[in-house]
C-alpha cells in the first residue's frame, strides 16, 4: 500500500519534451493567453519546452502592441517571463530544463517581420526544420 502511494507521488523523474505551438493572433480569441499560461505552468515543473510561433501566432510577440482601442490588456510583456525562465535554465547547471523559443521563418517573412520586431529573442527555423524538430517531441499542445 505504502509503496503504491510512493509510486503515485514520485514525479521527480518525470520529464518530457513539450512543444507549445502558437498559431493564432493574440487578441480576438483566448488561445494565445491560455497557451501562455500552460507554458508558465510547465516551468514550475521544470519540463523541457519549445515555444513556437507560426502563422498569425507570430503577431503575439510583435513589439509595440497598443490594445487600448479594443479594451484588452496588452499581455505581450508577459512573454518576457518565458525568456527569463529560459535564461535561468540555461545559466543554472543544476537545472535539467531546456527551453527554446522558435519562430517559423516562412510565417515571419510572409508578414514582413525580422527577429528584431519581436519582444523576445527568438530562434528562426524553416518549416522543414520545425517539422523535423516536432518529431522529437513527447507532447505537442497547439492553440
Amino acid at each position, binding site marked *: 500500500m505504502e509503496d503504491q502511494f510512493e509510486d503515485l507521488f514520485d514525479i521527480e523523474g518525470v520529464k518530457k519534451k513539450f512543444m507549445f505551438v502558437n498559431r493564432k493572433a493574440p487578441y480576438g480569441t483566448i488561445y494565445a493567453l491560455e497557451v501562455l499560461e500552460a507554458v508558465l505552468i510547465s516551468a*514550475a515543473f521544470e519540463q523541457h519546452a519549445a515555444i513556437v510561433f507560426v502563422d498569425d501566432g507570430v503577431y503575439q510577440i510583435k513589439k509595440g502592441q497598443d490594445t487600448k482601442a479594443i479594451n484588452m*490588456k496588452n*499581455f505581450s*510583456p508577459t512573454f*518576457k*517571463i518565458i525568456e527569463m525562465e529560459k535564461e535561468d535554465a540555461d545559466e543554472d547547471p543544476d537545472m535539467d530544463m531546456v527551453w527554446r523559443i522558435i519562430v517559423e521563418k516562412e510565417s515571419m517573412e510572409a508578414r514582413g517581420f525580422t527577429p528584431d520586431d519581436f519582444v523576445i529573442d527568438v530562434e528562426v527555423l524553416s518549416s522543414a526544420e520545425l517539422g523535423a524538430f516536432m518529431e522529437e517531441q513527447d507532447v505537442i499542445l497547439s492553440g
Partner: protein
Amino acid sequence: MAYDVNGKVIEHDEEGYITDISVWSEDLANVIAKGEEIDMTSDHWEVINFLREYYEEYQIAPAVRVLVKAVKKTMGVEKGNNKYLYELFPYGPAKQACKIAGLPKPTGCI
C-alpha cells in the same frame, strides 16, 4: 462594495480585490491589510513592492516559485522559502499579498 480610505471610496469585488488597479495607494494597502488582520511591517512591504514592480513589468502576478526566489535574492536565504511567506501572509502569499498590492486575483490556488 468598497473600501474607505480617508473618506475616499475605492470599489472592490466580492473577494476584496480592487476593480481599478490604478487607484492603489499605500494608505489603501493598509486598509486592506487591516481587513485581513495583517499588521504591515517592512517585511510585508518588501513583498508588496516586489509584486507591484513585477506586475508593472510583466502584466501578470509572479508564480509563488518566482516570488520565493526573488525574496531569497533580496532578503537572504533564511527568508527565501514558502514558510516565511506564509508567516507574513497566513492565508496564502499569492492571494493575500496580491489583494493588498492591489493586483487582480491570481489564477493559481495559493
